[in-house]
């Protein structure tokens, strides 16, 4: 059984911060000016190791994954290793030819959609972005590619949620993901006042829950918000917090205890969420290479992560929120513990895989 709250064991890969857009709410400040990327051969070697560690899904993000030079090569290699592969994209670089190439490789294409047309264009900073996106969605549907719509929920876009559900059904999406905006990256400059309040988190959670049940399985709904009561009730799914958790993970697969993991644009492996404090890194080490650093991390029994999770549950008991963005909460807490700056937005597309996508 996978550790944590996902039904799959997931590697989130952010191979580059290069992007064809500079969205106002981008958690990583990705843009066309970014240049660095993870060499494909390095990434493939690391995915081989993570496959042996029990992970079975690779989810590409970025930046824009279709701007990553090694995308086709790495995605095909990951499938050959036995991974299911997904990506989240702004969709604008999807061409018929590109879709034909990727059709047999990707299990799911997540497409970012930021609300009704005027809102989407404003946040994307491009007039006509919504119309272009809609044409790409039609291409995906015409080729029977399973796709979902990933929506970053802001204080303003809550009013678009009923429209979003109708739009997703009308255009043949298999699922809708609702992820709350976290003030990080470019959003800290350009999206002031758009973060969700505690009551808004509840509002979005209730909307998602009502729709999840009412859409009669025509559409899977994923909301990246947890009810604190449910989180506490499911704490036992976090194997690291078991009294029986082994002091060393060397003889075990990493995915049994740490899931998801995130590989950032520098190749660093982090637990659970993009932007978590680097003190939580699984592979950053002053003199060991990546593989040996991971071995060393396993030998510690992931004690740093265990401490963070324990702190998180204690903190939830103290603060008693009704709802929270669990991974965002962990990112913020990890940074607060080491006194670093604002949290980064988490990226959680793989959670969508909890709902096996069914083409409509």
């Amino acid at each position, binding site marked *: 059984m996978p550790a944590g709250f996902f039904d799959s064991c997931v590697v989130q890969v952010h191979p580059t911060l290069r992007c064809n857009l500079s969205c106002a709410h981008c958690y990583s400040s990705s843009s066309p000016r970014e240049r660095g990327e993870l060499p494909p051969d390095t990434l493939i070697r690391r995915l081989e190791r993570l496959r042996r560690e029990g992970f079975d899904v690779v989810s590409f993000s970025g930046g824009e994954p279709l701007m990553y030079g090694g995308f086709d090569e790495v995605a095909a290699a990951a499938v050959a290793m036995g991974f299911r592969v997904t990506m989240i994209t702004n969709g604008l670089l999807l061409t018929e030819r590109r879709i034909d190439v990727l059709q047999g490789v990707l299990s799911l294409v997540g497409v970012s959609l930021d609300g009704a047309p005027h809102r989407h264009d404003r946040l994307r900073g491009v007039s006509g972005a919504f119309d272009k996106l809609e044409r790409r969605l039609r291409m995906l549907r015409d080729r029977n590619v399973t796709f979902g719509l990933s929506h970053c929920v802001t204080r303003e876009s*809550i009013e*678009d949620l009923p429209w979003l559900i109708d739009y997703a059904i009308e255009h043949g999406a298999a699922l809708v993901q609702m992820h709350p905006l976290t003030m990080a990256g470019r959003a800290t400059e350009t999206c002031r006042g758009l973060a969700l*309040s505690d009551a808004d988190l*509840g509002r979005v959670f209730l909307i998602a829950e*009502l*729709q999840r*049940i*009412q859409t009669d399985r025509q559409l899977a709904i994923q909301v990246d918000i947890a009810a604190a009561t*449910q989180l*506490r009730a499911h704490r036992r799914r976090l194997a690291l917090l078991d009294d029986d958790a082994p002091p060393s993970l060397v003889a075990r697969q990493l995915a049994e205890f740490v899931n998801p993991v995130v590989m950032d644009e520098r190749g660093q492996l982090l637990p659970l969420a993009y932007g978590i404090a680097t003190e939580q890194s699984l592979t950053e080490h002053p003199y060991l290479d990546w593989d040996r650093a991971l071995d060393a991390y396993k030998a510690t029994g992931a004690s740093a992560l265990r401490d963070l999770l324990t702190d998180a549950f204690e903190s939830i008991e103290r603060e008693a929120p009704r709802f929270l963005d669990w991974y965002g909460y962990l990112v913020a807490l990890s940074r607060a513990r080491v006194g670093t700056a604002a949290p980064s937005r988490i990226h959680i597309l793989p959670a969508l895989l909890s709902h096996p996508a069914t083409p409509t």
Partner: protein
Amino acid sequence: MDKKQLATALTKRLASRKISDAAVGELADDIFATGHAPIDIDVCQNGVCVDYFVDRTQVGELVDKLEVSRNLRGIRLFPKGIIDPDRFLVQVERGLAG
């Protein structure tokens, strides 16, 4: 209005903030405070009916939590029967806060 239309109407009221933050909190508590995930939420003119599936050993704990919460109108227990005698469907009916 059928069940689906009522759920859609409630969704629209939530999205357009025609339901107050305080009422959202109450509704959330009514549905989620037990820690069990609902398997169905049925909306009617009079309120909300929430279904949970729980094991026999969890029924007492769930009912205890429900009794102390607001707006409760009724609880119905249905043993799942011969296929899985240790599973129960718990249906909870509540009035809807304004």
